[in-house]
Every structure is written in C-alpha cells, then in structure tokens.
C-alpha cells in the first residue's frame, strides 16, 4: 500500500519564489494574448467546459485523464519523476511514458497515437508537415547538459579544453595527453564517442562545428548530426551507460555523456572554452546559465550550444514536448496542458537532484504561452489566461 505521508519538502524559498514566477508567466501570457487577439480576425472564445486558467497550484480542477507520451530516452528520468510528483498532487491524471527514442516520439505524434511526443531536437518543417492532426506546438520541458569526461591518471580535475583541442582529440590528430597538458605524463588518448545517434552527440558536433575549422573540414559538414560524424576512428560505445562504463575502466579515455551520468559516476569533467572566452565546467548552474542566456528561444531557434554569457557552459540543450494545437478531446487537452505547464514550473523542483538544470524563466514563459494556444476540436481556446 502507498503511504500518504508524502514528503513534498516544500521549503520556504521555493514557495516564496513561486508567486513571482507565476506573475512573470501571466505577464508574458497576457502580452501574447493581446498580440493574438489584435491580429486574429475572429477572436476565439473560451471553451465552456473550462472555467479555470492554465497554471497555478494545486491543479485540483484538472479533469481526470489517462495520458501517454513517447520519445527521447534522455528525458525519461526527469519526466517519470515529474509525473510521479504530479500524481501525488492530483491522482486523477495518470501518465505513461515510453522512452523508445525521439524518432518514435515524432512518428507517434505525427500519427496522433500519443498525447505528446518528446524529442531533443524540435521537429523540422518537413516533419511538421507530415503531422496528421494539424499544427503542433513544441515546448521546452527540461534542460540538460553534456559533460566531456575523462579518466586520465595525473590529470587535473577540470582540465581546460578548447574546441580546437577537442576536435584534435576526436580527429586523432592529438594522440597523447601530454600534448594537451604538459603536467600529465605521456598517456595515449582513447577517444570514445556515442555509437548510437544521440542528443549529446548532436550538441558536441555543433560545438566543434562552431569552434573548430579543422573539424568542419574533416567532417565536411556544417550542420550538426545526431549520428557521430567521425565514427571511423576511436571507440564507439552504445548509450550513456556504455560510454560511462568504458571511461571508468579505461585509463586514457575521454568521452561525452549526459551530465547526470558524469555526476553519478563522479567523473573528472573538462572545463570547455565558451563563446565569451572563459573555461567553464559543467554544473547545474552553468547549464542553467546556458538556458537563461538564450535570446528569442523558440522551436525554430532552439540551439543553445556555445551560447553567450561568461558563466555559460557551452554544451547544453532543451528537450521538447510535442503537442497538437487542436485537442480533439477537450478534457484530455486541458489535463495535458495543465500537466505540462506544471512540469515546466513546479515540476522542475526535482530536476537538480537528477542532474538537469531547472528550466529558466525564458523557457517557462515559452512553454506557458505556447500551451495557451491550444484549442478544442471546434477551435475554441482551452484557456483564456
């Protein structure tokens, strides 16, 4: 039996922070709504079945619903935790999440067979065109980082690495750790990459494209790829777990893993040279800064790799939920929007303990304003505020 004395651990700073956040969210939403109604020819009216607005706690007015989501496995730990926490507050809403991969998430939302899809890279225009249920909104729901971790006896804790050096390592032109840092005794470098297509691989490829002409020359591409572009050298390991296990057991190895893994394995992580010319190591704060410093964030302008800001860690990315604008079932639509809005705000409380950075205000505002555009099957907005 489940005990009901669930320790929510709501500390004072959190609850005092919340009204401010909500206020900001409402402000942004209000501006957006004003923009909407002024440009729209037929101003939509509120769905009669819904009397309360989007957001706010404790969401007890949410209709009962069984929701399904599928997609990126990287979001799974955070999402299952957030849904679990939400279930404690509102047991009428249950959510199942299938971490079968971003492509499955996109295929499922295109086929309209899940309530929401999940992907690390937002759907492209051609992906969106194949959606069978009309327009899709894409909202950021978590913020993660990628650590460049190494196992080098005698190396400092946060070795400084530039994009050029990292490219040299992954191109095989820098072969010895001694060449990176003279204080390290001669040790052959073993570069490990993700063998499976992955978000972390995409981020690192983007960083190397931004920072190293040698890398772009060698790979012959200026568009980042989820499939590692230089898989013909070094060692490829499957999944974060594969890379992490190999780094742990192989002296001289360097590889990239989701920050949560580096945190759990207590790896030494490289401090990477960011756009502002500073070497920054991955942490909840520096990853959060990467998200917070993103200007005009949207699903077509989602890239925060090598972003601006002195304390920004250059390898960070948002994970995106994919939702149809037109929700054929009004109650499900309301429940879904309220759930995702909660995950993007209060639900972020669990993020840091799992190795994700809490969603910064700009991303929360984007999620909230995007969810406000959801309508029922007749085109009426589900929420007015």
């Amino acid at each position: 039996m489940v005990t009901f004395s669930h320790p929510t651990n709501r500390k004072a700073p959190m609850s005092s922070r919340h009204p401010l956040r909500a206020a900001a969210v409402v402000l942004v939403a209000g501006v957006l709504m004003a923009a909407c109604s002024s440009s729209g020819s037929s101003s939509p009216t509120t769905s009669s079945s819904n009397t309360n607005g989007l957001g706010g706690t404790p969401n007890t007015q949410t209709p009962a619903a069984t929701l399904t989501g599928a997609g990126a496995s990287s979001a799974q730990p955070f999402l299952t935790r957030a849904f679990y926490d939400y279930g404690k507050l509102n047991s009428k809403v249950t959510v199942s999440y299938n971490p079968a991969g971003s492509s499955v998430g996109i295929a499922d939302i295109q086929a309209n067979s899940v309530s929401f899809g999940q992907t690390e890279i937002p759907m492209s225009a051609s992906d969106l065109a194949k959606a069978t249920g009309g327009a899709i909104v894409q909202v950021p729901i978590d913020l993660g980082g990628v650590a460049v971790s190494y196992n080098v006896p005698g190396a400092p804790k946060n070795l400084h690495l530039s994009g050029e050096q990292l490219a040299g390592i992954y191109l095989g032109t820098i072969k010895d750790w001694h060449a990176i840092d003279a204080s390290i005794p001669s040790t052959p470098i073993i570069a490990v990459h993700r063998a499976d297509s992955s978000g972390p691989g995409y981020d690192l490829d983007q960083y190397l494209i931004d920072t190293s002409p040698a890398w772009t020359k060698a790979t012959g591409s200026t568009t980042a790829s989820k499939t590692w572009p230089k898989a013909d050298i070094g060692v490829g390991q499957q999944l974060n777990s594969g890379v992490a296990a190999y780094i742990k057991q192989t002296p001289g190895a360097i590889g990239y893993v989701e920050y949560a893994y580096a945190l759990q394995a207590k790896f030494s992580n490289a401090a990477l040279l960011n756009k502002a010319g500073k070497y920054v190591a991955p942490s909840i704060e520096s990853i959060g800064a990467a998200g917070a410093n993103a200007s005009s964030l949207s699903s077509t302008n989602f890239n925060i790799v090598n972003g601006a800001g002195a304390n920004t860690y250059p390898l960070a990315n948002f994970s995106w939920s994919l939702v149809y604008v037109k929700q054929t079932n009004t109650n499900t639509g309301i429940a879904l929007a309220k759930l995702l809005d909660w995950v993007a705000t209060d639900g972020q409380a669990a993020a840091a303990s799992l190795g994700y950075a809490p969603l910064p205000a700009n991303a929360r505002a984007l999620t909230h304003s995007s969810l406000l555009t959801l309508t029922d099957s007749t085109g009426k907005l589900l929420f007015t505020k």
Partner: protein
Amino acid sequence: MTTPNLDAPGQSAWTHVPGIRDALDARRGGRGGRVYASIRWGGAGIFVLVFLGLIGVLLSQSWDGFAHMGPSILWKSWIPSHQVFGVGPFIVGTLLTTFLALLIAVPIGIGTSLWLTELAPKRLAGLLGGAVEFLAAIPSIVVGFWGLIVLTPIFTNHVEPFFKKIPVLNALFHGPVLGPSVLLAGVVLAIMVLPTIVSLSRTALTGVALSDREAGRALGATRWQVARVVLSEARRGVRASITLAMGRALGEAIAVALVIGNRVAVPKSLLDPASTLGSAVVNFFAEANPGTLEKSSVVAIVVVLLVISVAVNAGGQFLMRSKFAGRDPEAFPTTDVRVVLDDTPWGEDRPEQRAIIRNSAAASLPRRRRRGRLGAALCTAALVVSMIPLVAMVAYIIIKGAPAISWQFLSGLPTPPGIPGNGIGNAIVGTLIIVGVALLIAVPISLGAALFVTERPGKLAGAIRFAGDVLTGAPSIAIGVFAYAVVVVNFGYSGLAGSIALAVLMIPVMMRADEEAISSVSADLWEAGLALGSRRGRVVRSVVLRTALPGLISGNLLSVARAVGETAPLLFTIFGSQLLVVNPTQPMASLPTTIWGNATQAYDDAQQAAWGAALVLLVLVVALSTIARVIAGRLNRMAS
C-alpha cells in the same frame, strides 16, 4: 523405385519408406483427417503470410534507401553528413564476428552435448543441460552489459595482449589494445549461441535409436566410438542447431553494440573496433526521424542482413554438399553433415557408420581406449568451458540484483529515480501475460508448419524451411519495426501487439525445433501406429507427438527463453505502463523494457532495479522450464 534423396529439404526418414507413404495417403480421409490437414496447412499458410508480410514491410520502408545508393550500398561506408548510406564495413563486421562465434561455439557446443548425452550420469546431465539452456534466457542487454563491465577489462588487460604475443598468429592481432573489438564481439556472440547449439544437438543426439548404440557396443566399440556413431546419426539435427545459432549470431544487435566498439570502418585486425549490420541498426534506428532518407537506409540495413543470411545459409548448404561428399567417413561428422548418408536409401546398408566401427575396431584396444579417453577429455573440457560464462554471468546477476529484491520490489509499482519503493510487480504480470499470449499464438502455428514441412516433402516445404532459417537471422528490432507498422499503426499500442511481435520472433525457431523433434521419432513407431489401423492424424497425435514431446518442449522452451528477454520487439509495441494492467488489449509493462529503461539511466537505484529485474526474469524462466519439464516427464511416464 527411385532412390529417395534425404538431402532434399523437407524430407525426413519416415516419409520415405514407400509403404508408409502409401499408408499415409490411404489414411487421409475422414473428419479427423480434415482437421489434421487444416492444422498443417493453416500453420504453413500463416507462416508464409507472416514471412511475406515482413519482407513486404521491410522492402517498402527501405525502398528510398536502396534507390538512393544503388548497388554501391554494398561497398560504401555510412556517412550521414554526406548523405552516403552504404553498409560495406557492416557486412565485413557481421561476417567476421559470426564466423568467429561459430568457430568457438560449434566445437564447444557439440562437445558439451556429446558429454551430456553419452558420457554424463543421467541426473547430472539433466541438471547441467538445463543450466546451459538458461543462458538463452539472459536478455541480450544484460549479456551486453556483463560483456562491457566484466569481459571488456579482462580482454583489455589480459586476453588481447596475450594474443599479440603469439608468434605468426599475432599478424591477426596488430594495432592498439582497446578492449572492445571484433574478437570480444565474437566471444560474446559465441556465449550467446552456445545454448542453441547445446539444446538442439542434445535433442538430436537423444533421438538416436537405442538399438544403434547397442549395436555399436555389441560390436565391441568403446563408448567413445559409439558416441561418434551417434553423432554421425544425429548430424541432421546438429546441423539445424548450427543453422539456428548462425541466425542468432548474424542478427544479434544490442549485445554486440555494447562490446564491438562500433567503429564505422573495415577492421584491419581482430583487435580493431568494428560494426555489424545488427549493431548499426540498433545504433541508428531510434533517432532517425520517420520518413527521412536516413530512416529508410536503416531499414535497408535490415534487408541486407536478411539477404546475407540467405546467402550464408545457401552457401553453407552448397559447401557442405560439394566439399565433403565422398570424404573419409572418419572426418568430423558435423562437417560432412548428411552427405554420405544422402546417397544411401534408408534401411539399407549404412557404410559410414559401419566404417567408423570397422576402422576403429582395426586399431588395437589400448589405442582405442586412449582415443576414447582423449575424446572424453575433450568433451569434458568443452562442458567446463561452456559452464564458465554461465556461472560467471549468473553469479554477477545475483550479486548485482539480489540487493534489490524485496516483497515491495516484486509486488509494487515502479517509482521514478530518487523515490524509494521501486517495484516491478506490473512488469512481472505484464511479461507473463504477453509471453503467455505469444505462446498461444506461436505454438500451434509453428507445430502445424513443422508437421507440414516434415510430412509434405517437396519444394514448398523446402522453401518454408528456408524462409524460417532466414527469419531466425532477422534482428529482433526488425520484428519490432514490422509489428509497429502492421499492428501498432492500425490498432494502437497494446500488450497483444507485443505478443504478436514475440510470436513472429518465436515461430521460426519453434518450427525448426519442432521439426527436429518430430523427425527424430523412429519410423517403426509410425508403422506400428498405422499397422494398428489408426488414421494419420491420430497416429501423429497419439504416437508421434507424444514420443517427440520432450524434444518439442525443450525446443519450444528454448525459443520462449529467448523471446522472454527480448527488448526491441516490445519497445515498439507494448508502450509500457506505470500501472498494473491485465487486459492485453491495453498498453502494458514488461520485464525486458523495465530492465532497458532502468539500465540506461545513471542513477544507482535505477541500475540496481535493472539487475534485480534481470534476476527475476532469470528465476521466472528457470521456474517455467522446470514446470514444463516435470509435465513432460509425467506425460512420458503415462504414455509408457
């Protein structure tokens, strides 16, 4: 009378005796006959439909990939950034690792099964034989992680440096020692195919008539000589076991991907990391967006894998037919397969078996004894070698998984990382239901198809068997793709969709195992049944299937054991659920997807839950297989 050709696909001993054939044909009529015929035709028909459906889905989804690359897909490399999607390096990696795996597993597997049937005390044989088969039940991802965490450092620090030191041979092992390599992947694959070889060879060896053994002993042959006669009698089944093992080695994806190092380049040394077709599919499938050229090209990898599986199967048959025909009958019996026997009508003189006895009888008794001791020692060594990975892996799973086990864990519902009280109760129930339904679907279809193939020799049966052999080489992720395209897209996610996917995975393996078990029933029993005036269907039901029951059960169990730990077909079909669901038309949870979901997370509690679930899965399979064996034993005793 024409000389029956036993080598033609679909022919087994008893259907060739002209008298039986006529009697069978005469006993076809009646209602029972029609029911029996519909079972056979139904099984074969459904199998053919599934096979064609699978091929159709894969071809239509891979069309763009093939059209884009043309024939150069076979030799170019995989460079997505340049829109080049060739599979050349993957083909080389696949052939190399499969060859290595069979090179290791075939002698060890056959030696082990010989030891189990001919040399071991009966009780011990049952125990150890069952134990080896449990290896088949360990999910690929668990084998893969064990290979990654336990075997890789051993290879890095000891095995690979050792091979580099051997003169001459070290030409195959140049280059830096990295751990993950073609060699390591070959060894891991050998471990994975070993239970298939041991279990099916053992069924075949046990099926050899007692009179043959008695005859050998009566002629003064040593135990070892008799063992060799038995092996040559059973080579048909032994060969089937190798075919299935090869299929599994060709198509294994997740475990290989965790140990091969996934370098997209043709390996220049056995120590180089490489990629296989299977590992490439598992690496690139999940993140390739639907409808893109990349996605289509990933499915094209599956098609190439199936074509290679066809080629390797056909090539193997051709090689064995031409190369070993008329060779010294003393040659290792598994290599000459049934070639010599094929030219000899059943029931007449069997020169090969006699030659083994005669030639070795010519040797002095001490020499024969020495040879016997050497043979026995080799078989014992094979047994020991095949037990090592089993013991090591089971011990590892217990050490890692046991701390997770509690009543809460076994009966509760899952909690996310960081929340104590994680449970897998819904996953256990889900797995039992999904696999149970899959069994209900697969057993009758495969049994019907197997009866069709054994009873209706000819081109059609040969084609069906060949299709089955090809299907066993399909990576399980391809079956997942098929089930997603056919079932999930039309009917949505459900436990039933997972059952259908698992059934598709099990049918070819079951069909082959059933066929071997049925054809190992002696012709005398058929004759006896028919002579008593029974109808054909009745003889099959009461005599043939009853006699073949132990073989049927162990063969079917083997494929259940394999299916029960499969992740990929379920990941694309059952969706998973946080709740306890018993209605198979709804999304459900399962143990393999739970293991997958937890093993791929960073957190200690998730990792522990993954190993705990793996342990539960193993115990479940042991329990199921013990129950099935006890039932088989009871039925056997009742029959006799």
